[in-house]
């Protein structure tokens, strides 16, 4: 029993060790560049979590990460790999801003926001449905098709923003920057401080004379930052996804198909339909991330790749780090938001080249993903001892993964 507890504890702590190890290796790079790693990392952590503005930026970045990661988790649970979140964010953001611009004229703000969110989810969903359908019907590898869909989304975005959707003011001024007009202010998702006001947080932190860390936290509620209500929305979504996956028949089927589509088929489930559904839901959540970025942060559509900003890929890592569990994704998205913000701060504070930051973040990703593999292996070892059939179990696993690789073509329901 004790041993079991210890094993579990190690499993739980392994990802943290992985991050520390990645930082340790990153420290070598920093030393090589003549930078004191301790100072650099301090700048990173303080920059991401140590003050009000850093914290706000971290949480702002956590929003799209969280929504994307939820979508990734649904796809993974359904046995699909969605690399297309970038494109899904972009089409979601495009459609949300287009719909938002059409819906001016006296409609209440909350109505435009809701329609805008639905629009983003809808378009992202379509961007997920297409590769899902291709996979289910024709056996097209979804990794490839989603990557292609990313490119299509980017080019469509440029096309629309240079032509039909371009801000008339840009044309009039002759600058022709490819971006849309700003959405009406009533369609801005409320800032966090505005929401806090509803609950009676009015005094600014300075006036209250609060010191230190608590002041910074409290400051989030009272001093204007970019921090917006999309964060609360994303957290609510995480809880809903948890309910979807573990409390409903749809989630049951998604997980069943994801874990063993053969057994699912034998049990009479419609495997293809479920695959398409999990990809559609996955795309919808990425599209939702795009919608929230528009409605909560940017308020207009601009350069597609700058809107998606790599969240489509970083979200995969956040999802894996959160163990593909909706409730684990909440903290992991905040952590990765912090890494993005902190990396930025570290770069500025220490004058480190941008590529080095990317390399260190890459190390973190690599180590975290490897840990996941390690944890699984440890668990398998613990499980298969009863028969003493360790090696056989491994052979079985290898055979299975080979079969799975070949099974892509033979999904016949």
């Amino acid at each position, binding site marked *: 029993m004790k041993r079991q507890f210890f094993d579990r504890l190690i499993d739980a702590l392994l990802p943290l060790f992985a991050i520390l190890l990645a930082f340790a290796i990153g420290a070598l790079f920093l030393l090589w560049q003549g930078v004191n790693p301790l100072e650099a990392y301090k700048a990173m952590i303080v920059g991401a979590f140590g003050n009000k503005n850093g914290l706000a930026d971290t949480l702002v970045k956590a929003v799209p990460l969280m929504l994307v990661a939820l979508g990734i988790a649904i796809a993974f649970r359904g046995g699909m790999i969605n690399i297309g979140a970038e494109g899904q964010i972009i089409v979601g953001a495009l459609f949300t801003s287009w719909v938002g611009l059409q819906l001016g004229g006296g409609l209440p703000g909350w109505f435009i926001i809701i329609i805008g969110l639905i629009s983003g989810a809808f378009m992202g969903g379509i961007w997920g449905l297409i590769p899902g359908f291709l996979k289910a019907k024709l056996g097209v590898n979804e990794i490839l098709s989603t990557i292609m869909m990313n490119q299509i989304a980017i080019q469509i975005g440029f096309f629309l923003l240079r032509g039909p959707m371009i801000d008339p003011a840009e044309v009039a001024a002759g600058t022709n920057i490819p971006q849309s007009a700003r959405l009406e202010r009533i369609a801005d998702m409320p800032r966090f401080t505005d929401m806090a006001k509803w609950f009676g947080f009015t005094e600014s932190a300075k006036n209250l004379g609060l010191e230190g860390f608590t002041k910074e936290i409290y400051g989030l509620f009272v001093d204007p930052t970019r921090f917006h209500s999309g964060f609360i929305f994303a957290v609510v979504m995480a809880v809903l996804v948890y309910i979807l996956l573990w409390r*409903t028949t749809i989630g049951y089927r998604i997980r069943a198909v994801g874990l*063993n589509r053969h057994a699912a088929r034998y049990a*009479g489930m419609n495997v293809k339909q479920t695959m398409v559904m999990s990809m559609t839901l996955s795309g919808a959540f990425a599209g939702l991330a795009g919608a929230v970025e528009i409605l909560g942060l940017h308020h207009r559509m601009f350069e597609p790749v700058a809107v998606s900003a790599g969240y489509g890929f970083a979200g995969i890592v956040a999802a894996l780090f959160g163990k593909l569990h909706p409730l684990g994704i909440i903290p992991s998205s905040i952590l990765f938001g912090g890494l993005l913000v902190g990396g930025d701060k570290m770069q500025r504070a220490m004058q480190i080249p941008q590529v080095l930051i990317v390399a260190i973040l890459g190390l973190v990703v690599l180590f975290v993903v490897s840990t996941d593999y390690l944890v699984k292996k440890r668990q398998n070892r613990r499980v298969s001892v009863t028969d003493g059939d360790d090696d056989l179990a491994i052979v079985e696993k290898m055979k299975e993964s080979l079969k799975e690789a070949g099974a892509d073509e033979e999904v016949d329901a």
Partner: protein
Amino acid sequence: MNDKNNLLPSGLPRIESLEMRGIVKKFPGVLASDHVDFDVKAGEIHALLGENGAGKSTLMKILYGLYQPEEGEILLNGEPISINSPTDSLNYGIGMIHQHFMLVDNLTVAENVALGLKSSRGLRLDLDVVSARILELTEKYGLNVDPNAVISKLAVGERQRVEIVKALYRGAALLVLDEPTAVLTPQEVDDLFVIFKQMVADGHALIFISHKLHEIFALTDRVTVLRDGKAIGTVQTSDIDKEGLAAMMVGREVVLTRERPPVTVSEVRLKLENVDAFNDDGQQILKNLSMEIRSGEIVGIAGISGNGQRPLAEVVAGLQKISSGRVLMDGNDVTGFAPLQMINAGLSYIPEERMHDGVIKDFSVEENAILQDNVNAPFSNGIFLNFKVISDHARRLIQDFNIKTPSRETPIKNLSGGNIQKLILARELARDPRVLIAAQPTRGVDIGATEYIHAQLLKGRVEGLATILISEDLDEVMAMSDRIIVLFHGQIMGIVNSDEITAAELGLMMAGEQSESAFIE
């Protein structure tokens, strides 16, 4: 004993004796081998018998150098040796024949034998040398294997002989045979046993692992029974009977022979009319198949693996399309129905590969209990799962079917094979089916669970269930079935009453020979 007598036909020295003494092997939480003594001598076949998880494979893996024991010693010809790897083991003259063939299908016999061995010519292949040696060996042992034949063209029995050649080529004086008959026809088994007996007569030592009791009696000189990692006892095979061995394995008296109480069969539940089916490669897998299964009967499907048993089950389950013919259930045409429609029409199916098709390994016991019915009342209202009902259902199945599991929430992969099979059986029977297809329901399942599963199938029979029992275990088919349908190359070779046929006659039909008494209808 002169020098010549100390050499095997392969020209290698014999292993006069091999002894494992006080072997202890621990895994976290499990004592897989608990002070086990085991020995084998030249010229003897020693059987190792035990249920799954009794410690047979652990013991043999220690012998093969895959595991290191914590305690105990291994003596070869009286000298203590240490075996640290399979290479060591081979160097001492210990070879293994695995339950599943370890052959590369699209290579020749010689290439397979040479695989993993050093060539005598460095980087260049020496297949001609290998072939010559294979011919020499096959001649001496009467194995009849062509070194240039491609494995995929060989029959199952021939492949088994290739495995033996492979072991002999590597210098095996002692052979561990891990369930070598699992995929053979009765005739092939007989041929194989002749070879084994010749090998021991020539001075080889054989360790024979099986859970088929009749094979133990047909072949072996001594038998050691393992249970829960302990050696329960070693006896002369001639001094004990089947019941005695079974009791040693399980630790209690076991009912081996099942009485099929007379039942009046009634209406036709399932009917196949001239069914043809093709696989994805365009090969015909079912040819003009017609059969009827009635309420209250168990119809056994006998045949060598891969002769249409699985396609037959999958056609009925709606998993395999048919190109012509009709399928009728309770008189209704269900041809072309999807799996879900067949399930709703009252079909239950215990698939052959239970871990692959029957359960979802990472799902809990209770989640696995509702694979088909998760959308249906009372388990859900269509959208939200009702966990109270699901838990109650699982609890009832666990209790009624005596399933050993730590809890309802335990992932099913942590259960033993027998208990997983019991859960599948429980799930399928709890659905109150009209027709049950049980494919290999007791394969790899321990004797206790087999006994239980058989009893449940017979209970279903009394209650009027129409059962198709697909099994490669002829004893099981003959003991359980009212009628037996023999399949060969997707065709029916005969439909016979199980009480009026011998295993030998069935074996001939399974090999494709039609006998005059083949059709009773």
